[in-house]
């Protein structure tokens, strides 16, 4: 009878923890060869080539990601910026942040990332001006519609930098001194703005 991984694991007990060596189940997939060549690079290149085979589908995938973001934005418009509506916008933007670069739209991904940052770090996301959120959604849509694939596209870059400036200024004003904790992760270095009223 074959033992389960739990039964095969070797345990060593210490005063307040146990160290367990599970069976090395994957050892059998390791092989040794004297063949010459860069196997790792071959494998990676094959995977990249495999991904290229479905590249023709990326544009429609990106469009559907945008539609999901727009649907979330429209719901927020009609229902107001409830926590639930903002969560949907944030999730849709998060998807684009994660996928856009692979789908050939890195700039859209970067814009989505600053929208995610805005909604994640704003002390009260419901106080984020809707126009700022809408600007991000429209910018992502425009980048995809205009087929902007390069992060160095002049117009696209300018839009990204302006949105970043708006977001970082807003966050620095809202977070005050706490902004220093997240400033290092900002996509662009922004001089924190002073709060109105001299705070």
């Amino acid at each position, binding site marked *: 009878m074959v033992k*389960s*991984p*739990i039964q095969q*694991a070797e345990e*060593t007990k*210490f*005063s*307040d*923890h*146990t*160290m*367990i*060596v*599970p069976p*090395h*189940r*994957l*050892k*059998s*997939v*390791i*092989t*040794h*060869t*004297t*063949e*010459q*060549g*860069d*196997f*790792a*690079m071959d*494998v*990676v290149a*094959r*995977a*990249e*080539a*495999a*991904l290229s*085979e*479905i590249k023709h589908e990326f544009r429609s*995938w990106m469009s*559907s*990601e945008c539609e999901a973001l727009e649907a979330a934005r429209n719901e927020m418009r009609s229902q107001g910026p409830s926590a639930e509506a903002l969560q949907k916008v944030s*999730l849709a933007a*998060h*998807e684009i*942040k*994660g*996928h*856009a*670069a*692979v*789908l050939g739209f*890195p700039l859209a*991904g970067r814009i989505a990332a600053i929208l*995610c940052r805005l909604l994640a770090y704003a002390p009260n996301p419901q106080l984020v001006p809707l126009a700022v959120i809408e600007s991000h959604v429209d910018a992502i849509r425009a980048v995809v519609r205009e087929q902007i694939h390069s992060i160095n596209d002049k117009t696209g870059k300018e839009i990204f930098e302006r949105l970043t400036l708006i977001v970082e200024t807003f966050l620095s004003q809202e977070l005050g001194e706490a902004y220093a904790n997240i400033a290092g*992760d900002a996509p662009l270095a922004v001089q924190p703005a002073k709060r109105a009223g001299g705070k």
Partner: protein
Amino acid sequence: MGLDPREGSVRGDGIMIRIEFHRLRFLVVDDNMHMRRIVRQLLHGFGSREIFEAEDGAAGLEAFNGHNPDIVITDWAMPILDGLELTQMIRKPDANANPYVPIIMLSGHSEKSRVMQARDAGVTEFLAKPIAAKALYERILSIVLNPRPFIRTATFFGPDRRRNVNPNYTGPERRKGKEGGETIPVTPLASQVLHAGGPAEQRPMAASSVRRTPRSAGATG
């Protein structure tokens, strides 16, 4: 020169290490069908043939129990049961057939706090989106070639969060807490292996978690 996955798996004695991807069985859990397709395509490119998919954490858990995959790749943000909860469910000792299965968290949440949270839930490797073939390959290579022991404490069960072992460290054992801390001297055998290296399968526990590769951008600790 030692085994170094980041340098094409070449060893100094002219021996190449290869992974037979066609024998690895993957489970990909992601609520986004485009992402699942991308990951599947990359894994196919590596040579894998058996790739199971699930569109949320609950379906992922069911697929995990049904298919017993070798490696799980999961998204974080998902409906019903997210990737973190899925990891915690899989890592429940005695609840599943293989609580030691390697788990790669593939997420757009790349903040350090999130990576730490994933690590503390029992994730084996963290991979930030957007995904790249090379980064995914490196994580899989690390899992196959450098399996880490598991640690069980009152509050944690998962792969050893310590990626590196400092052979010169003989101070207090912080895992035991400030009050219960004790000094663990390096044993002669461990010292010998740590300094001299040697086949992983012959090394004692502490040494088997030594990574000779640079620290990856993934889970740390």
